[in-house]
């Protein structure tokens, strides 16, 4: 018996007294031990095309592996059936799955329902020989394109499986907004967290920058020159909202949605100086946060919405500061280096990721906003900039010119699992990661 398996049994024995809906496997993040899942092909209801199921199956596995904490067991090793034969029959030969090293078995059924698709599934813990969570179902809306929706259903299911393993939902079904110049000018695009299906959102032919998601992932703020000057615009799915945030003619460089309460932090220039303001998403209640004669820009919210980190050059070079909004007190956070910029506060509150220059090169670092403890995240002889957190705080999307043109990459917070998301898409920049849609 390998050592890790022995450790596993000990762990399970220790945890068995605790009634918990979680797989009791010790995932050492440093060592990279992942949950091994046997994923059966799902049973197909009447009228469900085998190609659609195959597409679902591949998207499900890719969604699981995107998490970095789960991997699919090769079906060639299966002792049990390759596909779910009868979903209604919930019996389960756990020995068959445990013997091939699978921590869990995922099985289910795809059926058409109300002109859409319904996915039913159950997950088994093959080590403890128990169901892992309750059987569950997802349903897509009625729509012409089952093929387009099946990928989202698969990734949503993958994210739920990750939640059952770790207690924290996966992010493969979320979206990333970004800017690309592939059409000649910079427009805002949206793609899946794995880089799938990049789709253009703006199309005004001018300069568009810095998308920022509302907390419900339903709206975007972005900066556009389409009115002849830099201004912050809001745009919602279904076009519920589509217009400038504020009516004033002041230059506005960026809007950043607060994690709650519907405010935005706004970078705006008045009387010849760039400062940070707060304003409601309805454009009301404008108030000033910073009052220095220096440049204040790049605000990022603490997850509780009580503090802002931002960039100021009041010391003579761009450095990170943290301000408590209630007291108005601010303190300098970075002291190393002559150029620290683009802070992004993690949704867990634990870290601020930022871009720091050393020589002529920018790399990404993590800093603890309370202690100031700093550690490198990614470095490369070319530029790594503009970091943005995944909604679970496990991954960071960023911009890198390591292949010449700038692309969006993603990396785990421990610096592993680096992958490029954009391909042959001009220069891409300004990533913004949305929360879960539902």
């Amino acid at each position, binding site marked *: 018996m390998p050592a890790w398996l022995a450790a596993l049994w000990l762990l399970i024995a220790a945890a068995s007294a605790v009634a918990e809906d979680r797989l009791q496997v010790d995932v050492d993040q440093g060592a990279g031990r992942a949950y091994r899942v046997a994923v059966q092909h799902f049973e197909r209801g009447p009228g469900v095309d085998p190609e659609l199921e195959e597409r679902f199956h591949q998207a499900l596995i890719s969604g699981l592996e995107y998490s970095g904490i789960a991997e699919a067991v090769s079906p060639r090793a299966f002792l049990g059936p390759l596909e779910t034969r009868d979903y209604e029959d919930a019996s389960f030969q756990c020995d068959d799955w445990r013997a091939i090293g699978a921590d869990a078995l995922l099985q289910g059924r795809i059926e058409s329902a109300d002109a859409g698709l319904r996915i039913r599934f159950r997950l088994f813990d093959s080590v403890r020989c128990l169901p892992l969570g309750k059987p569950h179902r997802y349903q897509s809306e009625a729509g012409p*394109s089952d093929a*387009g929706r099946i990928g989202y259903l698969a990734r949503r299911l993958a994210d739920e499986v990750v939640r059952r393993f770790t207690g924290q939902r996966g992010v493969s079904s979320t*979206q990333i907004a970004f800017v690309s110049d592939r059409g000649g*000018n*910079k427009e805002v695009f*949206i793609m899946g967290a794995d880089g799938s*299906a990049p*789709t*253009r*959102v*703006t*199309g*005004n*032919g*001018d*300069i568009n*920058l*810095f998308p920022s998601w509302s907390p419900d992932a339903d709206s*975007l703020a972005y900066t556009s*020159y*389409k*009115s*002849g*000057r*830099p201004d912050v615009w809001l*745009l*919602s*799915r*279904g*076009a*519920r*909202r*589509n*217009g400038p945030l504020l009516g004033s003619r002041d*230059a506005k*460089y*960026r809007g950043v949605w607060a994690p709650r309460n519907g405010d935005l932090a706004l*970078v705006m*220039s008045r009387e*010849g100086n*760039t400062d940070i303001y707060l304003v409601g998403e309805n454009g009301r209640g404008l108030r000033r946060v910073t009052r220095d004669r220096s*440049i204040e*820009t*790049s605000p990022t919210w603490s997850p509780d919405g009580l503090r802002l980190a931002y*960039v100021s*050059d009041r010391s003579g*070079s*761009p450095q990170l500061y943290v301000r408590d909004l209630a007291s108005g007190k601010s303190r300098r956070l970075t002291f190393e280096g002559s*150029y620290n*910029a*683009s802070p992004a506060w993690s949704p867990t509150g634990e870290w601020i990721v930022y*871009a720091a*220059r050393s020589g*002529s090169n*920018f790399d990404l670092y993590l800093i603890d906003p309370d202690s100031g403890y700093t550690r490198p995240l990614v470095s490369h002889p070319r530029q790594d*900039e*503009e970091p943005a957190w995944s909604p679970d705080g496990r991954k960071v999307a960023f911009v890198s010119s390591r292949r010449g043109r700038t692309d969006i990459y993603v990396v785990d917070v421990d610096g592993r699992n680096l992958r490029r998301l954009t391909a042959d898409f001009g220069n891409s*920049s*300004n990533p913004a990661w949305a929360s879960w849609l539902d």
Partner: protein
Amino acid sequence: MGQRLLMCLALVALVGCQTDGTGSPSSSTGFPEESASGSSEMPPAARSSSEPDMDLQLETVYFAYDRASLDAGARGILRSNAEYLKTNSGATARIEGNCDSRGSAEYNLALGERRALAAKQYLVDLGVDASRLSTISYGEERPAVRGQTEAAFAKNRRDDFLPTAR
């Protein structure tokens, strides 16, 4: 003023018709589709460097890395720009502040603004009426020269002066 009111009305009409369900989102993301032809603004090409109606003889000034201060060379150019503006009293100009591509794009928007304002202030100090000068920052979004060399960077850290309709 009238134009602004018109734009407001157009916006209200747009939002109004989209919320009553006739403007269903055409893209798979749920966001409405925006097209360049639907926007009333000038395309960017028409706004950039050469507008034929007025032959404005104003020279570009350049800056050091991460700086918005005017060195002796920049001040010399601005003095001759000021002379031109005083001689051609009908001319108005927009000062466009720009940066090289290094550093934060967001910070560079503020830095470009500071560069444009530095030139404006100097021209005003030399006796040019402030109402004849407007400023805008393009940050690192409109490089004069492509490339990642020090020579290219130096040409991109600049203020351009463009004629504007009075």
